[in-house]
């Protein structure tokens, strides 16, 4: 009986040891952290723990090309996490980790919740310190992908409302000026009339005096 248990235990240990992440083929790389598997051609999968520059973002093209080159048409081992995000392995090496280490991706902001947080953030720190990959970009071009996505929906300072406000203020100013000028003109006319009548009065009184 004991012998049977020992055999079963050894067998289960053997089976666990032989269990390997299932291998898949990559159909299409969308950008540095998104891809489509041949087995599920209608689904776009994100890579776990990392955020690579968007395809149109500075270093986005390089990140995409690097990811493509890492598995170069060979089959990759894939582990799905609970969010249905992937961790890719080629020859036992984590591709997600390599992307961060080589400066082709940022470690995700919420990675602290995951088991690999330390190694990913440490790899990012090293890449940044060494100016590797995207960390070699000029300051103005080194934008985190989540900021990039946010900026893409940011609104321009509204020229329209600004213009309208400006125009409204200008109209008000113009109206006030017009009123002021009209008042001044009226005053001037009144003064002129007054001067004229004064002159007339003077002339009349002079005439009366001469009489």
């Amino acid at each position, binding site marked *: 009986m004991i012998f049977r248990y020992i055999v079963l235990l050894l067998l289960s240990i053997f089976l666990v040891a032989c269990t390997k992440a299932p291998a898949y083929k990559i159909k299409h790389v969308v950008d540095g952290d998104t891809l489509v598997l041949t087995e599920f051609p209608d689904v776009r999968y994100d890579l776990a723990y990392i955020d690579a520059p968007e395809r149109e973002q500075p270093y986005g093209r390089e990140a995409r090309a690097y990811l493509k080159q890492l598995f170069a048409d060979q089959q990759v081992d894939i582990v799905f996490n609970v969010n249905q995000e992937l961790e890719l392995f080629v020859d036992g090496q984590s591709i997600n980790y390599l992307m961060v280490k080589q400066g082709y991706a940022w470690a995700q902001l919420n990675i602290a919740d995951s088991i690999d947080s330390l190694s990913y953030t440490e790899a990012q720190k090293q890449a940044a310190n060494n100016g590797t990959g995207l960390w070699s970009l*000029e300051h103005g*071009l080194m934008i985190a992908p989540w900021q990039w996505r946010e900026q893409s*929906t940011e609104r321009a*300072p509204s*020229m329209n409302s600004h*213009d309208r406000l400006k125009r409204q203020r200008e109209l008000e100013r113009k109206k006030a000026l017009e009123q002021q000028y009209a008042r001044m003109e009226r005053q001037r006319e009144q003064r002129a009339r007054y001067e004229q009548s004064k002159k007339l009065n003077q002339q009349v009184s002079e005439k009366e005096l001469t009489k």
Partner: protein
Amino acid sequence: MNRRNFIKMTGLTSLASVMPASLNLHAAPVDFAGKYLVTLQLLGAWDVSSICDPKMNVPGEDQINHWARDGETQTAGNIQYAQFANNAAFFDKYHQDMLVINGIDAQTNSHNAGVTHNFSGRISAGFPSLTSLYAAIHGANLPIAYINNGGYTETAGVIRNTRLEHAGEIKNIVKPTSSRWNPNNKWIPDEDWALINQYRDKSMIEKINSTNLSVRERRAVSNYKSALDSASILTDFSTALDAAGDLHEDESGTEYWSSLKRQMQLAMISMKSGVTISADLHLGGFDTHQNHDVLQGELLAHATDAIDFFWEYAEEVGLADRMVLVVNSDFSRTPYYNSTAGKDHWPVGSAIVMERNAPWGNRVVGATDEGQNVIPIDPVTLQPQANGGSIIYPKHVMQSLRDYMGISDHAIVSPFVFNNEESFDFFSSTKSTPQSGDPRNSVRI
């Protein structure tokens, strides 16, 4: 300091103090015979896939443009355009006079950074606009050498800029004694005004000849005198403004209010009067995150209509053969719609350069793929080159414009050199980049 050095220093100081504050200020007004440079800044980001870099929809992908459901990519001469807004009339009339540069990667989708990058050639702040450099070189002594009505305004101190959207301000400066609403009404009688001017001139001569002014005082007097001398040139401008009659009123659409045509008129009248060399004109409202088709359509129609007006008016005032017009924006808009029928920001855009009878006209350089991503090109042949090709950045466009306008080697430009590894031959009359490399873009779905 010994006595000899003290005398030397005193001599140098007095010499410095009698020199004008800026040699440019006292230069005689130039008889400028070159080209006038105008940029049209379409602020908020225009959608180039709906004008000069047309994109049809790709089967199985998000729709890029709703106009492509019924419309087709059109061609005028060698230039392709979108069947949208009033594009057909515009491109049919002007394709011979325009160079379209597609696939310019602004490397940002932030409005401020995009405007800075596209109009200065550098994404970080600090470089002056092309127009300000051109004005500084050709018209530093002119009272309104550089008009900037909005958008990118950096001059890096090479020249002052002037806002000129209304004619009233100029008339006030030129005729300070006249009523703004009725020039025949004088606040001060002409005889009195002449006396005041006489006294001012006399006092000015006394001040200039006096020996007890500090350096700062002398500079202030000198600047004041130069401003007065330059102001006399403005009289011609004011006379021309009066002769031009009523200027264009503001125009408006669903979501925009535009003074663009009046800006154009004022810029050209001032150029014709010899007081202006370059101008930045602006039209805002292109940030169509919602209701994209309607708003962008109206704005593009207004912009192309205004450009048509620009050339007609230039012809009318006799400047059409001397104008160079550069049309650009912050960047472009996404090759797909968001949930509110709008389009968000996309860094890959285009620029249009226009000039009457230009030998480099009727050409397109640069390219994007079916998803409006940049296709690298060979800088020399301008042919697409996926491996080893170069991407067009705003610095390349700016450098080639500097070269074309003949200012690249000028001392004023030397502190603002780009670190370009390659230069593109955009203004060659023989080379261009083939468009619509991906056949899927010409399929209607």
